[in-house]
């Protein structure tokens, strides 16, 4: 493999890792506050559809982004109602949200556009265009570092930079602010937070809300930046890979970045090479597809470092009387 190919694979890694990263951080906020969320997939899908639909109608991708976030937030509110207010089963609620999004997106797409459950292709201002960072064109001739800067770091859409910036922001919010301390506490020992006179319900709704915003950006990125328009089931399990990355990262922001880059790399390699010939044997493409899930099971099994979820995760909080 030569340098140019390597750069292309890594470039594609960054593009494919971005939606995973945004969804993974979304899940991180929610699960750190004690609300399990297996509905990341559905929220991304709903956001992907609404952003593409509104961008196609208005021709303005920023309106699309807002609509995508709104769609994702609506599902977040349902999840919040079910799991916080009515103390229902958070996992079942997540399953319902995934199906709701899978069905409603196609239903509405068919009603609005009559194109078999897809939106029209986005053109011009309906898409997030790649941004060329300052000096990228001038530095491209510079050996090694020039192409890395021009190809790998520059030339992505704004949402990619937002996604990567979210990692330090999330870290700072969680570990350096009072809000973050309370958020983490509410996922570990909600009764302690309650005793301190802070609203458990309020904090959890805020966390679920942040999760909705980030999933919305992730979905909008899929439909308006990575691809040009919405197609049926376009998230294709990315929400679950993000969930896997979250466990792989043991619910920590910087590790989430590494896990998403790793899973993005796997996707990029599987996209580029079908079967990988290692001489003695070939690695089938199906193995590459399954690798994120296999790795997650291994991590969950605790053979390579144990993944311990937030202690109060999945449990509705009932005030003692």
């Amino acid at each position, binding site marked *: 493999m030569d340098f140019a190919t390597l750069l292309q694979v890594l470039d594609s890694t960054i593009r494919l890792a971005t939606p995973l990263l945004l969804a993974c951080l979304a899940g991180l906020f929610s699960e750190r506050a004690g609300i399990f969320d297996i509905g990341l997939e559905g929220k991304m899908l709903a956001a992907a559809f609404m952003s593409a639909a509104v961008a196609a109608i208005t021709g303005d991708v920023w309106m699309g982004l807002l609509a995508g976030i709104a769609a994702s937030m609506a599902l977040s509110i349902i999840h919040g109602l079910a799991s916080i207010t009515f103390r229902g089963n958070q996992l079942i609620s997540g399953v319902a949200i995934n199906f709701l999004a899978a069905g409603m997106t196609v239903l509405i797409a068919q009603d609005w556009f*009559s194109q078999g459950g897809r939106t029209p292709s986005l053109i011009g201002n309906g898409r997030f265009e790649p941004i060329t960072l300052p000096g990228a064109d001038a530095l491209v001739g510079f050996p090694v570092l020039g192409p890395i800067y021009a190809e790998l770091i520059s030339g992505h859409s704004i949402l990619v930079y937002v996604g990567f910036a979210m990692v330090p922001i999330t870290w700072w919010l969680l570990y350096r602010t009072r809000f973050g301390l309370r958020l983490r506490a509410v996922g570990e020992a909600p009764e302690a937070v309650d005793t301190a006179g802070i609203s458990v319900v309020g904090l959890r709704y805020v966390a679920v809300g942040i999760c909705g915003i980030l999933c919305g950006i992730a979905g909008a990125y899929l439909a308006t930046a990575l691809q040009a328009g919405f197609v049926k089931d376009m998230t294709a399990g990315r929400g679950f890979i993000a969930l896997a990355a979250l466990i792989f990262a043991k619910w920590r922001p910087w590790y989430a970045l590494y896990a998403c880059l790793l899973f993005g790399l796997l996707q990029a390699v599987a996209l580029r090479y079908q079967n990988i010939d290692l001489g003695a044997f070939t690695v089938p493409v199906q193995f590459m597809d399954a690798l994120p899930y296999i790795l997650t099971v291994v991590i969950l099994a605790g053979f390579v470092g144990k993944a311990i979820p937030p202690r109060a995760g999945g449990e509705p909080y009932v005030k003692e009387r």
Partner: protein
Amino acid sequence: MDKMPGWADAVLVPLISLVLAAILSALVIIGIGEDPIAAFQLMVEGALMRSSGWGYTLYYATNFIFTGLAVSVAFHARLFNIGGEGQAMIGGLGVALACLYIPWPNWYVALIGATASAALFGAMWAFIPAYLQAKRGSHIVITTIMFNFIAAAVLNYVLVNILRPQGAMDPATARFPEATHLPTFQEMFSTAETAMFRGSPANVTFFLAVLMCLVVWVLIWRTKLGYEIRAFGASESAAKYAGISPVKITVVAMLISGGLAGMMAINTTMGEAERLIMNATEGAGFIGIAVALMGRSHPLGVLLAALLFGFLYQGGAELALWTNIPRELIVVIQALVILFTGALDNMVRMPLEKLFLARRRSS
């Protein structure tokens, strides 16, 4: 003291949830500019007014009975088996291997053999998540989700690289031999004068599914193992104190659950396609969740809920054929049923409980 009488818990709560889901579904249909009453009539006509419609309804219901029972058995042990889809996929592999490589003399011996193989493969696929939950505390919901994706990759690999006949393009096995052909309802119930269930895929597997409802009922409510499963589900610490091994119950309940999910493949693979295709499960593993929730994890409830979803599936196909309503409407209805009977259960239950308490106080 119970807040509500038993009948209200078993019948009223699911019924109100169902009505809520139906009202919202009707609003969705109005939202996309169609008439919900006309749509419902079309569904009834297509699914229940002709014997061929019933043939499809019962065919889908057969799938949902198996997956619904699978989720129910796990629910009784307070385990959420989301992996029915993957277990059914791998169960299909078991059916295909049994049908292709063992020379069966006739269909009922083949049915017994293939059922055993399907259950074994499905149970095997549930074993690893079960073991990891029991021994290592890995969350079974997450591991079974991961195993769904791994199952899809395994099946894809096996179909493309190993079982695909030479020269064939689509990822599927060769056709099963004639001896493994299961009698369809058409062959069983048609007389010389009138053809019944014409062209529909319902087959003898339906009776196997009904039989499994009975078997699961006996298992859960009439055996020691069933008692242990329910005790473990009600309170892990109490079960432990009574000498019930959590590891054993977790693994056994999941093996039974996986086996039931795997048996679904008999219907789709041996009964209908007569070869193993890539997407044989068609999401039935997930519908099992809705069926189990609506049926309150009771085999009779599962049977009724599976019939309802069979009707919705066949009716939905009719809608997609004759109107502008896509098949995905069924996915929305399924989501609403899961939401109301599962996650928002308390929304219905809390006001009802208050109502019953108020009535008791006044009398």
